[in-house]
């Protein structure tokens, strides 16, 4: 079993737990940098999508996973980000500003929604965000003069000075950069006092408040940051698929985001990326499996959604700690071998406290 011998307090909150971890992540980083050289374009584009979803996931993980507030409306911020960047760039605004504008506007919408809803228990937030998502989508559809309504918009390519992101690898590097910065920023917040305050709110608002955590302000901060990140992800998404219309941003997208962070592993940084990988890879697996299934099942239009729901329920019932939880159990098993027992990592159930809902 590996023991971590720490010699200074700062080791508690280092970015990487120890040299070994830093090494592996460094290697991963180099691999990702080199990817365009040996990965086929199709798979590269999947990596781009994973990166985009990871940015959105990071925001939502901060809000739901760490701060404990549920949002069913993040598709709205995704949409706001996508449309804002498309519209700004069509008017000649350079990409970096358009990206920033997308995030800021999404954050502003987030504040507008959060201010009324966050005053109450979490469930009202979930429902209010759901309502907000419907309203935002409707506004996008009706505001034809700006958004072209239901017909949608063609998204210009990313321009940075003379550089045009007209190939997949170029888009890939931009998305990779944004994703890495996002993950680092969220990781920093989590290990800083603000992150601790957010987790305190998740576990006991009364206690958090008694220790000086301003509830409303902290929740709003988490909400605004998550909206901002989702908006930025939306902007990148717009550039990836090059054509956006309101129908792409339904409540399913919100649910997809939630499912992503849950299956990845609530309350963990790894969960963000694992969840993103899962959500992008699953449809591919279903598509592949279709070729091997009897026609009766394979041809069903609902098959992908059904698999999706079944997998989600499977995780909820059997492994609520998500993919990251499974990963930790595997590591634990091998590090404790042969002393591993079934109950080693079992968590005790806590009963629903109305107070925190």
């Amino acid at each position, binding site marked *: 079993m590996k023991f971590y011998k720490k010699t200074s*307090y*700062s080791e*508690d*909150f280092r970015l990487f737990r120890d040299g070994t971890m830093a090494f592996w992540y460094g290697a991963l980083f180099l691999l990702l940098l080199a990817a365009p050289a040996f990965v086929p374009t199709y798979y590269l584009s999947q990596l781009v999508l994973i990166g985009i979803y990871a940015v959105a996931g990071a925001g939502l993980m901060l809000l739901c996973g760490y701060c404990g507030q549920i949002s069913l409306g993040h598709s709205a911020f995704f949409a706001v980000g996508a449309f804002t960047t498309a519209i700004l760039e069509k008017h000649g605004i350079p990409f970096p500003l358009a990206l920033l504008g997308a995030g800021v506007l999404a954050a502003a919408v987030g504040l507008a929604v959060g201010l009324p809803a966050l005053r109450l228990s979490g469930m009202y937030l979930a429902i209010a965000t759901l309502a907000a998502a419907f309203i935002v989508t409707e506004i996008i559809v009706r505001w034809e003069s700006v958004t072209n309504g239901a017909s949608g918009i063609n998204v210009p390519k990313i321009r940075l000075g003379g550089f045009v992101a007209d190939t997949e690898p170029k888009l890939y590097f931009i998305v990779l950069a944004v994703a890495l910065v996002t993950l680092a*920023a969220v990781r*920093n*917040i989590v*290990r*800083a*006092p*603000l*992150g*601790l*305050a957010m*987790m*305190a709110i*998740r*576990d*006991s608002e*009364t*206690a*958090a*408040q*008694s*220790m*000086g*955590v*301003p*509830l409303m302000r902290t929740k709003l*901060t988490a909400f605004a940051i998550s909206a901002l990140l989702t908006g930025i992800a939306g902007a990148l998404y717009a550039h990836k698929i090059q054509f956006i219309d309101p129908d792409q941003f339904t409540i399913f997208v919100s649910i997809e985001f939630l499912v992503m962070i849950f299956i990845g592993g609530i*309350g963990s940084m790894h969960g963000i990326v694992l969840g993103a990988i899962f959500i992008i890879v699953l449809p591919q697996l279903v598509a592949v499996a279709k070729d091997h299934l009897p026609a009766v099942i394979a041809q069903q239009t609902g098959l992908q959604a059904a698999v999706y729901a079944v997998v989600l329920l499977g995780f909820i019932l059997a492994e609520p700690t998500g993919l990251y939880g499974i990963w930790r159990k595997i590591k634990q098993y091998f590090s404790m071998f042969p002393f591993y027992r079934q109950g080693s990592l079992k968590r*005790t159930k*806590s009963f629903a406290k109305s107070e925190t809902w």
Partner: protein
Amino acid sequence: MRAGATVLDVSDVGIAFGGLKAVDGVSFAVEPREIFAIIGPNGAGKTTLFNLISRIYEPSSGRIAFDGRDITHIAPHDVVRSGIARTFQNIALFDNATVLDNLMLGRFRHGRAGLWQQTLFTPFVRREKIADRRKVEEVIDFLEIGKYRDVLVGGLPYGVRKIVELGRALAAEPRLLLLDEPSSGLNVEETNDMVFWIQDIRDDLDVTVLMIEHDMSLVSAVSDRVLAMSSGRMLALGAPGDVQRDPAVAAAYLGG
């Protein structure tokens, strides 16, 4: 702090829920470095009074002053910033976090880093975190809970959780400590330890203690003054012996 000034001044405070007056016309002052106990049968309004002081409830009448400053209407999260920390009757800890993280939250009110600094994890944030850790380690030493440092609170025995909650309040470096039934659920040994800790908190840390207690032996051993309450009102206020011998107090407990 001005010499002779009271730490906490409660004047004619009252709160009603619907028609029921949970606290009615309570007035008392807590002197610096005093250990002040509040006793009374269940439903006397003791915890409600605490909730008024820590601003979870809004009083319908009266005034509360801390260190001369009126805190009757401040925001709940500003209470600890003013210098008052508390524990809860039913223990409000973060079960999914380690003892260390729970204690570290006690340092939250001392934090000065802004959002941007934290997002970038600047050296300032790093220094603050290390300073917080040092302070928390002092509390851990004081309460002798070092071996539980990295254990998830959810898995700890009740007695230890109570001590962790006390530690979190101490980590905030309060001037006034509100303890809600510090000995409830503790066995005889743990209660004796609590006696020593409360005294040490007053003697070594220079903290004034206001506590709700049912255990009379603890109250007699440790308190300078006692306030007896019943049905939201004050019954008696004075030295522990006097209050315990007061016939009105005896009647209240025996159901007069």
